[in-house]
C-alpha cells in the first residue's frame, strides 16, 4: 500500500495550530493544537459539534476571521498551483487575497448570505474570474456558462442572468460550487456545505462535489457535524471537541475500530434510521464553554471511562490497534 506519489507533496500541512480570541472574559482558546495533512486528491473531513473549533481553524488560516483580538500560532503550509509551499499564517493580506478564491475555493453553509442578492449570479462568478485573471472580458461569460452547466444547472445560459433569490437552495449551492471552482483551485474548503439543504438535495450536492473533485483534481476539506456524511464521503477524518483533536484516521479506521470514547459515543448516540424500538443513549452532560474548559482531557467530564489521569494530564496522540496513521488522543485507546 504505497503512498500515492502523484504530486510532490501535501496540499496543506498544518502543524500546532492554535487560535485564541481575546474577549471580554479573557482568552478563549478556540483551537488548541491542530495538526493535519491533506494529500492531493484527498477528501479530509473535520467533524465536530459547536465549539469544537472545526470552522475557526480553517477560517483562521485563510484569514476569513478578523485579525483584531485573534491570536494565531503554528504553521499552515499550503502548496498552490505553482507547486511552491508557503506558510499561510505568515502571508500578508495581499498575497492571501491572491490565493483565496483562486488556489483555495470556498463553499459555505448558507448560500443566500454568501451570494450578493443584488447581483445576478453569472456576473458574480465572472467578477472573481476576471479579478484572478482566469478569463478575459471576451470569454468570461462563455466560461461561466460552461461552469454552470458542469455543476448541473439546467439552462445555464438562461440562469446566467438569474438573481440568487430566484433559485432554489440546492441550485444556489451549485452556484457557490461553480464560483469556488471557477479559478481552478487546488483546495476546496467546504464549511457545512449541505447543512441547510434538504436531505434529497444534500445527496446531490455531495455527489457533485465528489465528481468535481475528480474532474478538477482537487483536494477537499469538508467541515461538518454530520458523522455519516463525513464517513461516506471523506477519505480521512479528524474528530474535534472543544478545540482539540480527539481522533484522526481513515473512514474505514473509524468505523471498524473507533479509538476514542467521544468518537464511539458519537456513533452510538446518533439517531440514524433503524434505531426504533431501542433506547439510544446520548452523551451525558454539555459541551463545555470555552471560558471553562476542563483540565487534562477536555472530554473527561462526559467520558464513562475517565480516571484521575484523564482529569490531570492532557492525553498524547497514540496509535489505535497498531495502525500508525490512526491516532487517538486518549490515555486509554479503545
Amino acid at each position, binding site marked *: 500500500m504505497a503512498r500515492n506519489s502523484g504530486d510532490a507533496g501535501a496540499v496543506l500541512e498544518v502543524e500546532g495550530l492554535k487560535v485564541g480570541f481575546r474577549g471580554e472574559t479573557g482568552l478563549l482558546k478556540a483551537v488548541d493544537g491542530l495538526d493535519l495533512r491533506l494529500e492531493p486528491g484527498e477528501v479530509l473531513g473535520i467533524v465536530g459539534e*459547536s465549539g469544537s473549533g472545526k470552522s475557526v481553524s480553517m477560517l483562521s488560516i485563510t484569514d476569513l476571521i478578523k485579525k483584531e483580538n485573534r491570536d494565531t500560532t503554528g504553521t499552515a503550509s499550503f502548496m498552490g498551483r505553482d507547486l511552491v509551499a508557503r506558510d499561510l499564517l505568515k502571508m500578508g493580506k495581499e498575497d492571501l487575497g491572491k490565493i483565496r478564491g483562486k488556489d483555495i475555493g470556498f463553499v459555505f453553509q448558507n448560500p443566500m448570505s454568501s451570494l450578493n442578492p443584488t447581483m445576478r449570479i453569472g456576473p458574480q462568478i465572472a467578477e472573481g474570474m476576471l479579478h484572478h485573471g482566469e478569463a478575459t472580458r471576451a470569454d468570461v461569460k462563455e466560461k461561466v456558462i460552461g461552469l454552470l452547466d458542469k455543476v448541473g444547472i439546467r439552462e445555464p445560459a438562461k440562469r446566467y442572468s438569474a438573481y440568487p433569490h430566484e433559485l432554489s437552495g440546492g441550485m444556489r449551492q451549485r452556484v457557490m460550487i461553480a464560483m469556488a471552482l471557477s479559478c481552478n483551485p487546488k483546495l476546496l474548503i467546504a464549511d457545512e456545505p449541505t447543512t441547510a439543504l434538504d436531505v434529497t438535495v444534500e445527496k446531490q450536492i455531495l455527489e457533485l462535489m465528489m465528481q468535481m473533485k475528480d474532474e478538477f483534481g482537487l483536494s477537499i476539506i469538508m467541515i461538518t457535524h454530520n458523522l455519516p456524511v463525513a464517513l461516506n464521503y471523506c477519505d480521512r477524518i479528524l474528530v474535534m471537541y472543544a478545540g482539540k483533536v480527539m481522533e484522526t484516521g481513515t473512514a474505514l479506521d473509524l468505523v471498524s475500530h473507533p479509538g476514542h470514547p467521544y468518537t464511539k459515543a458519537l456513533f452510538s448516540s446518533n439517531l440514524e434510521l433503524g434505531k426504533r424500538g431501542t433506547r439510544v443513549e446520548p452523551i451525558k452532560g454539555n459541551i463545555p464553554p470555552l471560558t*471553562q474548559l476542563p483540565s487534562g482531557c477536555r472530554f473527561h467530564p462526559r467520558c464513562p471511562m475517565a480516571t484521575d489521569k484523564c482529569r490531570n494530564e492532557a492525553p498524547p496522540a497514540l496509535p489505535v490497534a497498531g495502525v500508525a496513521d490512526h491516532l487517538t488522543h486518549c490515555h486509554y485507546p479503545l
Partner: protein
Amino acid sequence: MATAATMEKAILPHNPEDAEASEYGGMAKFKKDFRRFRRNKLAVAGLIYIIILFTAAFLADYVAPYHYSTPSPPHALETSTIHHWFGTDELGRDMFSRILYSARNAIIVSFGAVLIGLAVGALVGAISGFYGGILDIVTMRVVDIMFAFPQFLLLVILVAVMGRGLGTMFVAIGITSWAGYARLVRGQILSAKNNDYVEAARCLGSGNGHIIRKYILPNIVGPIIVAVSFGIPAGMMAESAMSLIGMGLRPPMPSWGNLISAGMMEMYGFPHLVLWPAATFGVTLLAFTFVGDGLREMYGKE
C-alpha cells in the same frame, strides 16, 4: 467577514453550571449591565458631572452665592475674583450664579421637552406599531408631515403664539420632537413583535397588554433610553438657539443661550462674559453625550 466578537458569540455558549442561589428578577442583571457602562470612563465622568450639576442646579437657591438678578454696579464687568468666581456682567450680576440658574432652567426645559415628546411619541408609536393596519398608515403619514416641517421654524411659530416663558418653552420643544420618538418606538415595537418569544407568550395564553408590558417594553427600553439621553442636549440646544434669536427665556431669567448671545456682543472687550457660559454649556452637552454613549454600550449587547 466574521469578527472575533461574532466568533466569540458563536462559540461561547454559556456560564458553567455552578449551584448558585440567584434571585428572581432584574436587579442582578442590571448590576451586570451597569458594569459595561462603568467600563466607559468618559461616560462615568459625564455621569458624575451631571449628578453634581443636577444637585447644584436644584439647590441653586442655597448654593448660588448671589441671586441671578442681584445687581452690583460698583463691581460691574469684573473678571474672576474671590467673590465672583466667573466674574460679573455689565450690571454687576454674578456670572457663576447666573450660569448655575441657567443650568437649572436648561434642565427643566430639556427634561420637560423630552418628557412631553416621549409621552406623546411613545404612545402614538406604540399603538401604531402594535395594532398596525389603517391606524398605522394614517399615523405614520402625520409623522411624515411633522418631519417635513423645519423643526426650528415650527418652534419659532409656537413660541410666538404661546409666548416666551419656561413652561411654554418646553411644551413647544416637546411638540416639535414627538415625531422622532414615535418613529423610534414604532420601529422597536414592530421588530419586537416578530420575536419568537412573543409568539411563545401568545401560545401560552398571554393577552396583548401582558405581552406589551412584559415581553415587548423591557426589550425596547434600551434604544429609547439612549434616544432620551441624546434628546436632552438637543433640547438644551434648541432653547439656546431660540435665545440667540431673541425668542428664548425673558431676561432677567438667565439661560445659557441668552448669556452667550449677550456675552458675544462684549466678546472683544470682556471675553469672560462669553467664555464661561460657552464652556460650561459645552461641557454639559458633552457630558450628556458621553452618558448616551455609555448607555448605548450598556444596552447594545445581548
